Structure formats: structure tokens, C-alpha cells
């Protein structure tokens, strides 16, 4: 309760909460009606679950040599072995952790940078906006994967570097989106009201405007996870992965030379990446349709 507000009127937060809550419930109903999106959610849940409980259940160290190198699926290991005889299934299960973690971490970094830049630009306008948008355009001019490669190679390939590099190269679209949403929302009455009663900027941004800008950002976050996973795979394919941590990208990258001879070490992690990105895309589509009914056709 801010003291300088006339008693009896709902605070801006309450209004905001009200505005958010209804669409969210509505959105979930629409999302749940979207079979493709639900399928995506189910697949993703299964993948995450497999990565979490799979390794202890399966009980094989993905770095251990269990059988002759390049044994086909069923011979010695359910999904075959890789170039030094390590279990592919163990790798896919364990590798899911690193890949999903990199994907999620990179997506979080993407969102955080994008949100801050976009929110400040959209809310303050003026020179702040000008400067931040130039910065955004600047990063859009640099080809993302190329910049990520440069960052990873300059700062040694570890999972952290990779996640940070991906975040640094992918935040621009989130920033633009956030700015657009902020520009729209700050014109709305309750925000104007909050400003007129001179609530603090930081409060308005994070407590009032942001929740209302969430729907498209949630969609963007879902897509960012997919993009980040593809990035990690691409970097590993180019040999810029971390060899000390099993990941799907690393499996593809290090088995790719023998792709013509042995399809399984590359195919199974490839399918895992494909399914994860696909399910994330389906979820993103579903969220998009559900949260932005106007834009459903996009």
C-alpha cells in the first residue's frame, strides 16, 4: 500500500495482476486445446525426465568403455557404441543434462539481457532508447554463430563459455520485442496512472509493465531454448564443444568423421536434438496462439 494513494481505489499492482491473471487462465485453456502444443509439452517433459532420472536408472557411465568401438545398436549396448566403445544410450541420457542446461542457461541469459535492454529502451525512451537500440542493431549486424564461435575460441570451450556466448549473440530479438511491448503498455491507462502518482520507475517497470509484457516474452523464451540447443550443437559440430562434459552436440561433433561408416553415434543424439527443438517449437507455437489471439496467424 502506497500511502499517497486515495483509499478505496485498487493499486496499480492489483489492476495489473487482474489484467494478467485472466488472460493466463484463458491462455492455458487455449493452449490445452492445441493438440500439437500438448504433444510438444509431453515430449519435452519426457526428455527432461529422461535426462534427470535416466542416468542413475541406467547406471552406465557415459565415459566408460563398455564394448568394442562402433558396435551397432543391440550389440553390447542398446543404441550401440561410439568411436571408443562408449555406450550411446548412456551418452544420450547424460548428454541431455548438459545440452538442456546449456539451452536453458543460454535462454535465461538471452532473456535477461534482452529484457533489461528492451525494458529500459521502451520505458524511458529518449536518448536511452536511442543508445540501446543502436546497441541492439549493432549486435544484429554481427552474424550470431560466427560471433559465438569467436567468443568460444577466444575464451576456451567450456559449457559456461558456450552458454554465455550463445546468450550474448541471441538477445537482440528479445530486446526488440520487449521494447515494443513496453512502448505499447506504457501508454495504457493504469501505467499512466501509476506514473502520475509518481511510483518509482523501477517499481513500475518490474511490477506493473513487465507482467503484462510477459505473454510474448514467454513465447520468445521457449524459442530461445530451441535456438540455444541448435547453437550448442552447431558449435560442438565445429569442434568447439567441451570434451570433458558429455552433450548431444559433442556426441555428434566427435562422431561425425565416421558418419559414413557408423550412423548410430550421430543419429541418436541428432534425433534427441531434433525432438527437443521440435517440441519446444510446438510449445512456442501453442503459447503464441494462446497468448496472442490476434497474432494467431503469424
Amino acid at each position, binding site marked *: 500500500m502506497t500511502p499517497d494513494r486515495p483509499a478505496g481505489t485498487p493499486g496499480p499492482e492489483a489492476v495489473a495482476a487482474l489484467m494478467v491473471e485472466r488472460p493466463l487462465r484463458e491462455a492455458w485453456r487455449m493452449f490445452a486445446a492445441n493438440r500439437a502444443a500438448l504433444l510438444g509439452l509431453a515430449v519435452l517433459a519426457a526428455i527432461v525426465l529422461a535426462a534427470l532420472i535416466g542416468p542413475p536408472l541406467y547406471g552406465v557411465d557415459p565415459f566408460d568403455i563398455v564394448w568394442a568401438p562402433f558396435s551397432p545398436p543391440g550389440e553390447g549396448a542398446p543404441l550401440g557404441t561410439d568411436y571408443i566403445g562408449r555406450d550411446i544410450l548412456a551418452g544420450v541420457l547424460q548428454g541431455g543434462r548438459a545440452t538442456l542446461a546449456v539451452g536453458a542457461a543460454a535462454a535465461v541469459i538471452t532473456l535477461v539481457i534482452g529484457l533489461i535492454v528492451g525494458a529500459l529502451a521502451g520505458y524511458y525512451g529518449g536518448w536511452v532508447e536511442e543508445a540501446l537500440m543502436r546497441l541492439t542493431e549493432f549486435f544484429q549486424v554481427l552474424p550470431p*554463430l*560466427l560471433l559465438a564461435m569467436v567468443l568460444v*575460441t577466444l575464451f576456451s570451450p567450456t559449457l559456461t563459455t558456450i552458454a554465455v556466448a550463445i546468450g550474448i549473440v541471441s538477445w537482440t530479438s528479445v530486446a526488440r520485442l520487449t521494447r515494443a511491448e513496453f512502448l505499447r503498455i506504457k501508454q495504457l491507462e493504469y501505467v499512466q496512472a501509476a506514473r502520475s502518482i509518481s511510483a518509482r520507475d523501477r517499481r513500475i517497470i518490474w511490477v506493473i509493465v513487465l507482467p503484462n509484457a510477459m505473454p510474448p516474452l514467454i513465447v520468445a523464451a521457449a524459442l530461445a531454448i530451441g535456438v540455444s540447443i541448435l547453437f550448442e550443437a552447431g558449435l560442438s559440430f565445429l569442434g568447439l564443444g567441451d570434451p570433458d562434459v558429455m552433450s548431444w552436440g559433442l556426441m555428434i561433433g566427435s562422431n561425425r568423421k565416421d558418419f559414413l561408416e557408423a550412423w548410430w553415434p550421430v543419429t541418436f543424439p541428432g534425433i534427441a536434438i531434433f525432438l527437443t527443438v521440435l517440441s519446444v517449437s510446438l510449445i512456442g507455437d501453442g503459447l503464441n496462439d494462446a497468448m496472442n489471439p490476434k497474432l494467431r496467424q503469424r
Partner: protein
Amino acid sequence: MRALGVILPKLVYAVGMLLAVVVLNFLLLQIAPGDIADTIIGEMGGATAEIEAEIRASYGLDRPLAEQLLVYIGNIASGDLGYSYYFNRPVLEVILGRVPATLILVIAALLFAIVAGTFLGVVAARRPNGLFSHVVTVLALVGYSAPVFWTGLMLLILFASIVPVFPVSGMVSPVFDGGLAARVVEIAYHLVLPALTLGIIYLAQYSRLSRASMLDVLGADYIRTARAKGLAEGVVVYKHALRNAILPVVTIAGLQFGQLFAGAVLVETVFNWPGMGLLAYDSILRRDTPTIMGVLLFSALLVILANMATDFAYRLIDPRIRGRA
């Protein structure tokens, strides 16, 4: 004069952006562990402390940072992107040799994505809930979700090994020896698989985009009028609606240029396509920082040029914004 008024600010802007890229390059090199002297010593296989100091001095690495930055900017402004220790040539020469291949690949992939994507999207939009529409949606998603190098490897196996109809590597056959016309055909033949691979990711976006805008436009008043006038459905769709639906396509195409460049790194690696992407890969594997930074600068330059071109194309297509600066 008016044209100048439009172009000049854009040029200033472009130069500013490039300057920023140069500064970023410089900063990255400063922050990163190790420097060019370390790389050269590594390529040499190591050196004594005296030689190390000598190399540092010869590259001006012992000077104050601000001075180094100014020298760096000055060199680049005069067209000197540095010397590639690995390729043993000036960086500019190495990069210029690679630009055409990448441009050919990226433009071909973009055209393929736009033409095929738009076509699929438009056809799908005519029956938004039909089977074809769903198939297009699914295909688009699949193309987008599969890693691009993966798609490339699959196509390589399929069309170069199992059904060997396309070449696997490079831009022209190593034994090629023919005239200009034959060269064009040769390059086009080598281009099929890489362009297809790179285009497939973006196909998705264009098919969805054109489907969406077609649906929007088909519902618009003037289309209804056209239909009411009794124009044939094909004419309505392809002449009236498509023209308007193409605007967002142009916008996206311009924005995507940078991403296409990035995708080109992977595709060029898979198909040994001698462009800037393969160059970036090679120079990263050898920590050839002058070349890496040169590639970064050049791709930024090409993206900026592409954005400017998009901007002008937009003005040409859409009369409404012609007046605006």
C-alpha cells in the same frame, strides 16, 4: 539532393556501425586470454622469452592500449586488415577471395527459401485447414528444428553417396577448365546441395509468413472487391494478394541476412564450399585472430549493405513510405 538526404545519414550510420565492430574486435582481443604474439609463438611451436618480447614489440603490443586502438582503427580505415600468419598473406586478400562464394551461397539459399517458401505458404493459405496446409506446417517445423549440419550430412549421404547425382565438395571441380558459361553451369551444379541445406531452415519462416499474410490479405476489402468483380481466383490470389503479402517477406529477408551468414559457416564446412564461413572455421582452428576479426568485420559490412538494400527495395515496393526519410 533529396536522394542524398536519404542516403547520407545511412552511410554515416553504416560507418558508425563498422567502427563499432572494429572497436569490439579490439576489445575482444584485449579481454581474451593470450594475444597475437602467443598465437604466432604457438604456430612457430614455441619461442624463448627474448623472441617472445621481440614479437610483442614488433606488433606494437607493448604500446599503451589507446595507442594500439588508434593504430588498429587507422590500419583498418586504410584497408589494412592485418596479416594472416596462418595463410601467410594479407587478411584482406584472403577474405576478398572468399566473399563471392559466400554471397552466391547465401543469395541462392535466400532465393530458394523465399520462392519455395512463399509458394508453399500461398498454396497452403488457400485452404488453411486442408491436409496440404498441415503438411507444409509440419515440414516447415521439421526443417527448422533439425540442425543445419545434420540436414547437410543427410543430403550429402543421400544425393552424393547413395544416389550420386550431385557433387560433394567445392564450388567447381578441381579439373574444371572451361569458359564463362560452362563455369556458371558448373557452379550452379555444385551449389544445389549447399543452397538447399541452408535454404531449408528459412523455408519454414517464409511459408508460415506468406501463409499468414495471405490469410490476412485474402480477408481484406479490396480482395473481396476483386472477387466480387468476378476475377478468376488465380488472378486474385497471385496478382492482388501476393503483391501485398510480399512486403513482410522483404523485411524478414533483409533481417535474416546475418543469420544466413552464420548458417553458412556450418553449410560451407559440410560441403567444403570455399566461402567466408569455411575461412572462419579454418582460421578459428588455427587461432588466426587477424583473419577471424577480418571475417567478423566483413560479414558485418555485408549485413549492413544487405540491410540498406532491403530498405531501398522496400521503398520501391511500397509507395506509402517513399516520402519518408
